[in-house]
């Protein structure tokens, strides 16, 4: 029943969204430039302007690569709830808000809180990294999604530049899809640089 509900919601949401193939040089929010060696599908909701781009290979219920660019201090990471994977009767999700000057561990907590709206999140690795040319943090996580009992693996990258947040997350089912698609996500993320 839960699976059917999720599929119906997915179908309903799909009716409101547009999907376009993206490859080559792409600019996210006019601030973050990435090179896309293999095509991804960009999903856009015409009714909402989210602070991130969301791309997928196999479809949003399975995998997604989200790219945030220029999120300002005091701005939430999402503009509207991700209703796609919420079980019936769940409370409204809480939106984590970026605040300039957060240490890397708190940046990870933001994304942990974001994904916790969909299910149980466990952070499995956190390391310093360079993302988009800035010192930042790379983290790995698992997400046991409530709505369809699927366990996903994910990776995230985050850094701050001039008091703005730049970040990316990739998540896919841990069996097959994650290991197959992660290199494609990493190929995009490693090219990220801030415009200007």
């Amino acid at each position, binding site marked *: 029943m839960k699976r059917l509900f999720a599929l119906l919601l997915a179908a309903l949401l799909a009716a409101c969204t547009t999907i376009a193939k993206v490859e080559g040089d792409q600019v996210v929010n006019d601030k973050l430039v990435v090179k896309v060696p293999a095509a991804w599908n960009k999903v856009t909701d015409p009714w909402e302007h989210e602070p991130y781009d969301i791309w997928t290979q196999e479809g949003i219920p399975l995998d997604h690569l989200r790219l945030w660019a220029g999120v300002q201090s005091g701005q939430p990471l999402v503009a509207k709830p991700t209703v796609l994977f919420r079980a019936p009767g769940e409370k409204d999700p809480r939106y984590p808000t970026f605040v300039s000057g957060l*240490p890397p561990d708190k940046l990870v907590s933001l994304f942990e809180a974001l994904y916790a709206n969909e299910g149980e999140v466990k952070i*499995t*690795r*956190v390391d310093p990294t360079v993302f988009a040319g800035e010192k930042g943090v790379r983290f790995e996580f698992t997400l046991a999604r409530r709505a369809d009992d699927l366990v996903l693996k994910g990776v995230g990258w985050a850094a701050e530049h001039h008091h703005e947040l730049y970040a990316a997350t990739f998540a896919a089912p841990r069996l097959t899809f994650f290991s197959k698609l992660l290199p494609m996500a990493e190929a995009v993320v490693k090219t990220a640089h801030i415009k200007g």
Partner: protein
Amino acid sequence: MLFDRLLARKPADPEVLYARGEVYRLRGDKDDLPRALDDLSRAAGAQKPPAETFRSLGLVQRQLGNAQAAAEAFDRYLALDPHAPDAGLLRSYLSDLKS
């Protein structure tokens, strides 16, 4: 409220003190940082505290600018759990704190 009730029954329970301190640390509202420091310091001084107590204590001390106390807490955490998920990040914090 739940933590307060549990601590009323057993005031030095390190697991409850750690849990409440971590909630304060993550919430980060006004006055939360001193409350987190108090709970986590008490947990760290109790018998058999969770290893994560020292991680959270180090993060709070680092946020307060207490480099030596933060480094000591991170050292203790990594000694207790050298393969912790966030060991890589905390070793980078340690390197900065000791430089």
